[in-house]
């Protein structure tokens, strides 16, 4: 899944991103509509969303709070890529200052905490935080399949690091209980479970193969020495 330049991106959005249209405040409408489509159809176009944030940055009167938070929630689903940070860098710091707009700074601070937990692979704590406040449900409500997208990312990353993992740990990391967790592990991820141990198929990432790096030596590296020897004898 390419969250930087996805295949789903329509022609008109491509021309906004790559041309001077990206500075036209009127392009905001198209980009917001496109974000809505992303939210409904489970894909992310971080490049286009940054273009939208950039327009907000340049035209603060156009800012819509819920669009900013939706972009950030979308970026959350792309961890551990730096998409969330890149979006944060484009949010004007004046928006983040407390008191300027009562709710937005708090919402962004909350999402940032979630992002730090996902980046820090503290998955159990992530689900606990998500459950701790109704605000999170409000913030993620527009994003179709938010929890499942996160679970799939977590499962993918686990498969890169683990060959076997205890089901009880996995349940906490996926934020699911018995039957739901079993269904996700066996059906969505397609892994086998034996005596409470989840077996993860081998892949290039979880092999940790030994390797040796040798120095590449070629003639060019010696060309100066050879030339020098030649010139001095000549």
């Amino acid at each position: 899944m390419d969250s930087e330049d996805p295949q789903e991106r329509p022609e008109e959005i491509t021309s906004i991103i790559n041309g001077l249209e990206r500075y036209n405040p009127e392009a905001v409408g198209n980009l917001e509509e496109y974000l809505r489509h992303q939210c409904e159809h489970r894909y992310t176009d971080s490049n286009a969303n940054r273009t939208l944030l950039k327009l907000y940055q340049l035209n603060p009167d156009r800012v819509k709070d819920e669009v900013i938070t939706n972009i950030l929630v979308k970026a959350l689903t792309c961890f551990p890529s730096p998409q969330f940070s890149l979006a944060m860098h484009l949010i004007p710091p004046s928006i983040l200052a407390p008191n300027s707009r009562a709710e937005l700074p708090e919402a962004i601070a909350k999402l940032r905490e979630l992002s730090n937990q996902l980046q820090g692979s503290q998955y159990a704590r992530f689900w606990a935080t998500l459950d701790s406040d109704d605000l999170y449900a409000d913030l993620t409500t527009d994003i179709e399949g938010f929890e499942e997208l996160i679970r799939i990312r977590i499962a993918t990353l686990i498969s890169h690091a683990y060959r076997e993992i205890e089901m009880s740990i996995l349940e906490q990391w996926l934020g699911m209980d018995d039957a739901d967790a079993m269904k996700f592990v066996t059906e969505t991820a397609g892994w086998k479970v034996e005596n409470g141990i989840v077996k993860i198929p081998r892949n290039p990432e979880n092999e940790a193969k030994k390797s040796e790096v040798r120095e590449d030596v070629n003639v060019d590296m010696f060309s100066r020495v050879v030339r020098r020897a030649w010139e001095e004898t000549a």
Partner: protein
Amino acid sequence: MSGLRNGSAPMRSIEDDSDVEEEALVADYKEQVQYEDGEDLDQVNSMTMAQQTDDIQSRLVAAAQPLDFSAPLEVKFQSYDAYCNLFHFILNSEGPVDLEPPSHYWAWDVIDEFIYQFNSFSSYRLRIARQARENEEERQILRENPNTWGCYSVLNVLYSLIQRSQILEQLNAMKRNEDPAAVAGPYGSKTLYKMLGYFSIIGLLRVHCLLGDFSLALKTLDDMELNKKAMFARVMAAHFTTYYYVGFSYMMMHRYADAIRMFSHILVYVSRTKNFQKNAQYDSITKKNDQMYALIAICVAFHPTRLDDTIHTALREKYGDQLLKLQRGGPESLPIFEELFKVACPKFISPTPPDFDNPEANVDPVDHHLSVFMDEVKTNMFSPTVKSYLRLYTTMDLKKLAGFLEVQPEALRSYLLVNKQRTKQLRWTDNGLLDGEWVNVSDLDYAMQGDLIHISEAKVGRKLVDWYLRNLSRTYN
């Protein structure tokens, strides 16, 4: 283009064919000869062509002159107007203007100074806005002129110079080994336009970076080839600036291997050529030089790697203590990361005028970008410790290791996952700067089987060629 003009940008479109540039010339001339009130302008209008050319030549030279840092606000406004008039004249005259740049470095100096003034004006404006009840007069002037040195006007100038000169088309033709002159058009075939257009690309890289848009900054250089044959390499300051901003943008995108490659390249180049560069140009880059060493220290802490010997030695001289603490990681390293970042980052700016009515609401953009960056630092701060232990074993029990580290097993599981994820990095191979391949950038790899950690370390064979060559040349001398 329509969007660019929204911020009441100073430039007018070519269609409303007016005499603005002539008026500007007249105004300038009038100022110079200090007309008494009431005298009519006929005399001025009869100014000869030769005089006009002299005048524009002196304006070209003036545009490349550094503005005194402590210049009063009035002078900063005048300087902005002077740039607007000059660029308007260059871009919107009927057809290309027939001018030769005063010197080889001129085009770079103009763009450099233009952006420098934009940058320092924005920082100054923010500083004034944050000091309530002081400088009331300046606050008032700044509040009333929100578009002076505005972001849209600066971007407009740079994009217009790039478009007019067809420089992107020319660079692409060069890439394909075709003659750039064939696609240069009436403007781009003139040195003045070509060089202004070219350095405007680097100017854009810089402005995007200053605004915190790091991926767009790198994207801007898509058509430019970064190598010693590139046009910018002939102007030392341009060469240097390009690598600083590209390296910095990579760092902010968490692509530390690529950032180190950029910083190393230019620092090695500088250290090899510094004996030939004993001039003003070289002096101006010593500060940036030290900044890049600080950035290399940060990147190496994230991504330990073997550096070029000269860089390694200089780094230990300049930032030895700090580097040691960064590499050790943990909470004690955080203040050092902050310190080095603040010393070495560009002077970030906010794209819109500050809020003069709420001084507290104006956060310094440097603090904002630093705080976002520190999130990433905190995420990774235990990786050095974890790695140093893993190196000692081929298999290890997780609970036992957690005991050594005095942390909960659950915390260690997180550290291991974080470190494993960060060893996979996008690394540039060819094509655009944003492209790359996902590679394992660490010599240490591991996988978990329940609580059992299997560790493998890539053995790096001794590198002999460099050693052999160095000793060989020593015996020659």
